[in-house]
């Protein structure tokens, strides 16, 4: 079954030979033996890297895989897992095909292949299925993105999410929107929500609608559309008629871009476009392709700590590969790093020991704008969302102040 996976770095034959030699080294060597002599022979740690690299969300999946592989390469280049005699990470790549059932089936194959842990999933609906499938076999699973909070509320002991979930995003968005609006003298009193029809868009819209009233913003209209949506003229006409202070989109990339472009075309200029997990607002590609349509858009999203050198190094590395530095890239990079730290401390490829190490993780070697790492029911309680804004053709962190590298510009200049 292992031949089903795209293997990197270690072939099956080399892996078997390595296992035998590594086993011998562990049996006879003990701790004193030099790392370098044993590194080549140490058994590789098999890690499943699963993403939807084909189908509807394949762009994000491909980006995520690239991020995870950069982490694997960095870990292996730095000498692998030291507590396991320099064992290399052996990435077994799988495609969830943007389908939950395919994702779950891939986990079964991972189990047959004897992986020590799995990273990835990307979309919430995939993560919900893959984490459950992994739990059945006791495989430690680090969720890379999957913002749906049900993923960490199912009581699965094997599931860990380093990044924040939905609830944190909406809470942060409402709080920071209120802060920004209050600081500017409360110019925003009305809003229109535009959202795509699936769980992500509809869920975000419902939460926002419920909470915006509490900060004195009246929701004039909620406009739902399908994905893909070929034309946004109608929606923009309705926005124009409603004339809100804020437009709040909850869309995937393509629709978000079309909406922003159509708004620019139809000269609809609200005081701000403010989104939560906005499909395009925090994408360098959008900023580069359509700087005018993207200017001043605010977004509450995943982001790195701009003051950390390591984040900038990874950005350069990503761009050197001809890829955009999207959140999928750095979240996957960090998810693999978190796992590597746990394996290092577990000093074992045993699934239960790795789960223990993840449960007790206080990993601080990351470059995210997070508080101290601590897992509670699989969720990193230190995970935080930040507020971003497109300023000077770049994406800047505007809140919270300790991570900010720019001040919010609101209302947007006419």
């Amino acid at each position, binding site marked *: 079954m292992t031949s089903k996976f795209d293997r990197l770095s270690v072939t099956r034959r080399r892996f078997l030979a390595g296992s035998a030699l590594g086993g011998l080294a562990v049996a006879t060597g003990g701790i004193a033996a030099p790392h370098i002599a044993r590194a080549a022979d140490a058994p590789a740690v098999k890690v499943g890297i699963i993403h939807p690299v*084909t189908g*509807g969300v*394949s*762009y994000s999946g*491909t980006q995520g895989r690239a991020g995870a592989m950069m982490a694997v390469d960095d870990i292996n280049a730095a000498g692998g897992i030291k507590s396991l005699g320099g064992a290399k990470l052996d990435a077994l790549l799988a495609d969830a095909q943007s389908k939950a059932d395919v994702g779950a089936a891939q986990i079964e194959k991972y189990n047959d292949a004897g992986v020590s842990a799995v990273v990835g999933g990307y979309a919430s609906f995939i993560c919900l299925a893959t984490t459950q499938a992994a739990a059945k076999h006791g495989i430690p699973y680090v969720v890379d993105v999957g913002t749906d909070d049900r993923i960490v509320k199912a009581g699965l002991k094997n599931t860990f999410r380093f990044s924040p979930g939905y609830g944190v995003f909406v809470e942060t968005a409402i709080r920071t929107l209120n802060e920004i609006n209050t600081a500017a003298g409360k110019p925003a009193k009305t809003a229109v929500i535009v959202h795509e*029809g699936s769980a992500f868009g509809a869920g975000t819209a419902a939460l926002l609608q419920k909470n915006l009233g509490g900060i004195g913003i009246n929701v004039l*209209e909620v*406009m*739902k*559309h*399908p994905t*893909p*949506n*070929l*034309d946004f*003229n*109608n*929606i923009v*006409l*309705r926005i*124009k*008629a409603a004339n809100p202070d804020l437009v709040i989109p909850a869309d995937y*990339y*393509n629709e978000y*871009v*079309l909406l922003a*472009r159509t708004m*620019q*075309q*139809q*000269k609809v200029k609200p005081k701000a476009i403010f989104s939560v997990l906005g499909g395009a607002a925090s994408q360098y*590609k959008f900023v580069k*392709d*359509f700087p*005018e*349509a993207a200017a001043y858009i605010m977004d509450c999203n995943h982001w790195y700590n701009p003051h950390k050198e390591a984040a900038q190094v990874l950005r350069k590395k990503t761009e050197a590969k001809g890829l955009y530095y999207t959140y999928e890239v750095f979240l996957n990079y960090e998810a693999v790093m978190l796992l590597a730290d746990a394996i290092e401390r577990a000093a074992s490829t045993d699934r239960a020991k790795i789960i223990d190490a993840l449960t007790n993780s206080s990993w601080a070697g990351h470059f995210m704008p997070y508080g101290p790492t601590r897992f509670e029911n699989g969720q990193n309680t230190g995970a935080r969302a930040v507020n971003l804004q497109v300023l000077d053709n770049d994406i800047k962190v505007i809140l919270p102040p300790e991570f900010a590298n720019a001040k919010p510009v609101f209302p947007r200049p006419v």
Partner: protein
Amino acid sequence: MVEAAIIVPAILNGLTTGAVYALVAVGLTLIYGVLHIINFAHGALLMVALYGVYFLHALGGVDPYLALPIMIPAMFALGYGLQRFVIGRASHGKDENVMLVTLGLAIVIENLALYLWSSDTRTIDTPYGFSTVDFGVALIAVPKLIAFAGALLLTLALWALMRWTDLGKAIRAVAKERRGAALVGIDIEHLYAMSFGIGIACLGAAACLLLPSYYASPHIGSAFVLIAFTIVVLGGMGSFVGALVGGLIIGVTESVGGLFLGDSLGQLGVFLIFIAVLLFRPTGLFGQKA
């Protein structure tokens, strides 16, 4: 809550969108009318054309509208070759085989695009991309106006070609009576490929008109093809005028329906029309009885 002031812009917007739908549907209806096959690869080939226009712009700096004289012959050649050397040969003259071959082609082409160009969305920025013309009651984007005029002109040109040229007459002859056409010396294989080529050339034109206000991605074709099928059925299988009128009706229905029912339900009207046509006028608005 819909104000009257936004109904007129919505209708105008529907007309501009509908014209491009029509151009996609015209190719489909031509292929159906002559070859009597439903080309499932139509959407995938539209996607290829969109990438063609994108790469001409990104790598060669060719404006999408100036790419028309390149894309139309290029897509024609692709269509001609596909029918002559792949679809025609693999189908062994059976209609059900043709359908499977085109379906297979669609899958191969889409996945090849995914492999070669990744699932990344490609857009182009043109100097006129955000320009609009103020009609008083509505602001209409320049690319949409050009697409509207271009689609109308091309459909008319195609209609004229079919009506007045020898090629058009021969194609119509083959469509009406295959064996009779062969008996009077018409090269059937060649004409099949010509029809398929012309149908696909329409996609080349549609792509040039679409890209300035839209995007290219490997799965983009399917969004258009379902609507194009509806238009073909609505207008009457094989009818050009039907495809044009059908396209405009569908465009306006979708747009106005979206306004009243929300964009998620806007397409409801499109499919209600589809079902009504099948129930009450199965040959379509301009279709002839088989």
